[in-house]
């Protein structure tokens, strides 16, 4: 049987995800509201990151197979996103003039954005209840 993703260690994980959902949303909101024209692509990616964190937070906080699938997709996307944006921002810093949550692999957030999806995937696997 699959175990819920939102209790035990999952409760702490959801708290961390919620923190990043709020942080990314607030950051993207300020960027889009005050200076969208300066770097529209970077700020829209910033908003995308925010949406991914929100979806991951809600999906991890809910129990059930559908939520688990959603969470797996969101957390996987998050990992791809932090690697892609992180690499782009290192190779081409001018494309990302302002920090997003995923810039430089999440350096501005103590690299938690880089580690978090790995922890999330580990937890989803751990609670899946399938034999490995």
């Amino acid at each position, binding site marked *: 049987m699959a175990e819920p993703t939102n*209790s*035990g*260690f999952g*409760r*702490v994980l*959801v*708290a*961390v995800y*919620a*923190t990043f959902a*709020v942080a990314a949303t*607030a*950051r993207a*909101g*300020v960027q889009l*509201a*005050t200076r969208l024209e300066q770097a529209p692509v970077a700020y829209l990616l910033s908003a995308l990151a925010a949406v991914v964190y929100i979806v991951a937070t809600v999906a991890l906080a809910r129990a059930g197979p559908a939520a688990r699938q959603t969470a797996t997709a969101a957390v996987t996307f998050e990992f791809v996103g932090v690697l892609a944006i992180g690499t782009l921002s290192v190779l081409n810093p001018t494309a990302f003039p302002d920090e997003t949550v995923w810039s430089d692999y999440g350096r501005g957030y103590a690299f938690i954005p880089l580690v978090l999806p790995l922890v999330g995937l580990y937890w989803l696997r751990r609670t899946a209840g399938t034999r490995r």
Partner: protein
Amino acid sequence: MNDALANAIIGGALVLAAVTGVFSYLRRPTPRLVVAAVLMVAAAVLVQAVVAAVLLINGERPQELGTFIGYLFFSVLVLPAAFAWARMEPGRWGNGVLAVGCLTLSVMIVRLQQVWDVTGG
């Protein structure tokens, strides 16, 4: 911004992060005294938000006003949200949630101070 109050909140939140971390390690429910301390810090954050709001109304302006208001708004919500989420699972993980909330709060107040110190002009 009142630096003394902000520093007290940062210090208190860091101490409480360590304390709840220890109780998480011990798998013990959060002692009442620690809960009271968390609620006191939450109250102090509320006072700070009111003080900052009054300063804003009186015309003081950090350069990044939107960012400042964002930090101010969410700093008030962090501990109550962590507290509510932690209560559902007292013991190791509830304490863990409180520790995350306290650490988050301390970072937010540091950022709040930084944003405030960069004034326009």
